């Protein structure tokens, strides 16, 4: 498949300048290169939430499940249980995964479910026209907080680390090449791989200049060390004006959820019948 073929014919309806394009194309490039290396793309399933991010479902020629707001992870869990040959990518938003569906995200990490989660973290509810989310900076003026939001954001990287995610990274939609590499590594990782992607929302929360002035690349040599990762996670709390590290923050190996529930060979009808008879005998 060519990259063009991976993009569907559906009319793209993101705003000009939207960071979602960068995510879409980074994903496309990574998948094409994987296909070239022999990975069959029909084994990919994307699961999307509801929000601007979710529209990527329509824009890609990939198997997909356009789910509910906040519910990508349980859907992905089901797909992985049904068929662990399928590689599942959750494309989700900050409203989607950090507000409505936060618990699932934490449980995905806790269980080390073998899926890749890309959070289109534009730090705003885009599709519902600009309200604050759990990662919006303090004081963000959205339509539900015209006087500025008075809550402090939480730090998704720190939360993911304490929840047990085995691969944690941060990307930025203005750093397309790095983003590609991160997505690729996340896809290669066995286990719960999570990337918080600082995504520009051109319409409601354009933080390009803020980010551009603060980003730097993390030294990834110690990515296996929890304490180092913890230190990195806490450098920038999504609110203070610290430097913003990008790259792989943490990576380690842990048992997979799916391995506890391997797909068994099914009983034959005769075996099933025998079991039913046994139960009936026991109960008679």
């Amino acid at each position, binding site marked *: 498949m060519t990259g063009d073929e991976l993009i*569907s014919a*559906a009319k793209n309806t993101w705003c000009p300048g939207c960071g979602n394009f960068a995510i879409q194309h980074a994903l496309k490039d990574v998948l094409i290169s994987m296909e070239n290396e022999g990975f*069959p793309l*029909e*084994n990919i*399933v994307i*699961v999307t939430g*509801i929000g601007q991010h979710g*529209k990527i*479902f*329509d824009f890609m*020629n*990939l*198997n*997909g*499940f*356009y*789910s*509910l707001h906040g*519910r990508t992870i*349980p*859907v*992905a*869990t*089901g*797909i*992985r*249980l*049904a*068929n662990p*040959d*399928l590689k599942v990518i959750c494309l989700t938003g900050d409203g989607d995964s950090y507000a409505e569906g936060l*618990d*699932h995200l934490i*449980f995905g990490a806790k269980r080390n479910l073998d899926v890749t989660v890309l959070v289109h973290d534009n730090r705003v509810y885009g599709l519902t026209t600009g309200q604050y989310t759990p990662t919006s900076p303090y004081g963000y003026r959205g339509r539900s907080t015209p006087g500025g939001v008075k809550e402090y954001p939480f730090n998704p990287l720190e939360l993911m680390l304490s929840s047990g995610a085995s691969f944690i990274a941060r990307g930025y939609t203005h750093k397309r090449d790095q983003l590609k590499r991160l997505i690729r590594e996340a896809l290669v990782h066995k286990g719960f791989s999570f990337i918080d992607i600082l995504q520009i929302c051109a319409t409601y929360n354009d933080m390009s200049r803020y980010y551009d002035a603060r980003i730097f690349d993390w030294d990834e040599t110690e990515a296996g060390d929890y304490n180092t990762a913890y230190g990195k996670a806490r450098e920038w709390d999504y609110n203070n004006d610290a430097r913003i590290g990008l790259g792989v923050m943490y990576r380690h190996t842990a048992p997979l959820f799916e391995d506890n*529930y391997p797909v*068994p*060979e*099914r*009983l034959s009808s005769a075996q*099933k*019948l025998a*079991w*039913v*008879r046994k*139960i*009936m*005998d*026991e*109960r*008679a």
Partner: protein
Amino acid sequence: MAEREVSVLIGGKAGDGISSAGQIIAHLLAQTGYRVHMYFDYPSLIKGGHNFAIIRAAEEGIGAVREQVDFILALNQETVNLHRHRLRERGVVIYDASTVKLAEGIGIPVKNILAAEEAPPVMGNSAIIGGFVRAAGLNWDASSGVLKKSMPKGTEKNLRVARRAYEASEERQQVPGTGKPVLPVLTGNEAISVGLVEADLEIYLSYPMSPTSNILHFLAGYADELRIRVIQPESEIAVILTALGCSYAGSRAVIGTSGGGFCLMTEALSLAGIAELPILVILGQRTGPSTGLATYSAQSDLHFALHAGQGEFPRLIIAPGDAGEARYWSRTGLDLAWKYQIPAIILSDRLICEGLYSVEPETGIRYAAGPVMADPAIHPYLRYAPADYGISPLRFPPAKGEIVRVNSHVHDTDGITTEDPLVTKEMADKRMKKMDRLALEIEGINSINTGGVTDAVIALLCWGSSKGVCEELGKKKGLRVIQPVVLWPFAEKAFAHAMDGVEQFYAVETNESGQLATLVSRFGYRPSGKILKYDGRPFMVEELEAELKKVIS
């Protein structure tokens, strides 16, 4: 009803093992050829409160218990105090003489027996059972066989305890065998589980909630043997969405819950509706609203099940009336969910889920096995392609060279989002075509049961667990009994047929408004009256009989 019948009440504190003792008594009676039914009454706590079970055995199948009983087995004084008035003339109380003060009846020196056998207090109920075996004139050898089977742990000691009590007891009211073949005795939850297994259940998911938790426990216990997977996610929301992920990728997942958990599933039910993902929900009703009475029953979620989730979409709702029906219809429900790619609900209730019933052991014939699959030669695969009866053939990912998309938005045949008004209407029509077809199919299977005296002009209208008591009184009082099993799509023609010649009918339901009565009123049927109970408890036979006397001369 039947000439020969016997009712036994056993009571004690929570933690005394009343439920298992009740089950053993049911088995003891089943063993001699009776058809049995047990109602177990317990508050929502682990230890201490008053628990009791009523086991009723008769020659014909039954699904209700009586207020009056022939035997009371009292593990404590409270049982005697609370239930003594139920004792029929010539009935017998068998009690723990070490804790209960009573002048008549058979006192079993439980404490001494346990001491003699160095047995723990929990074996007290084996003693009471032993006393009962003798008092009811049951055969010791056959009975000890049942005891052995029922108590895989500490079998020998339990048997010795029971035997001592047997000897300390005396025969009072002989319960004769019926000479009929012995039938297995199952709870509704077990029967549902068996039905699901028969319909190729692959993955069972549930967040624990009474009264369906025991399906989770039962299936978890057999998971390895059955090669199924049994999973307890973090919430009901996760339960249903995980199950829909399974459906998408081709695995038959079933989920179980009660009203409160079902609330949390409604959003995804609507998703299953528009995305055309098959899913079966076992919805065990209990007394509401809200947390209500967690361990008591009700039939008050019919309309909620009918309309749960935003928007309109086809669904199948089945309310079995006993364990046998629970097994059959769980199997059929799962098959139909997959055949039509729709959400289906087994609307059970606490009385069926946790009640014991004698069931026919035969496995019957599968109603419809596989879903409609697409021809892999046809390219491109379109998940929502127009098709006969609106049922688009399925493929599961990975499908080489094809893309499989499901979507919670209005979508085109390929699953891509659209806001086009024409496509919106077409897709709604496609979904409703499935409903129409399913309705036709439902008309053709026995979705409306008619019982009692089938040509009577006065009828009782019932559903789910109110079937048993209606059936019994229908026969006794010469009333027709009409029990719709499939509640949606409603088999209007079959119902009209069942109602043919009926001049008056009374709805018998355990809810406040008469939910089935409301449903049939949509089709122009107005009941002459409603007999409703909503205190969490079942209709006892005498109770409904008295109510019927008030309305039917």
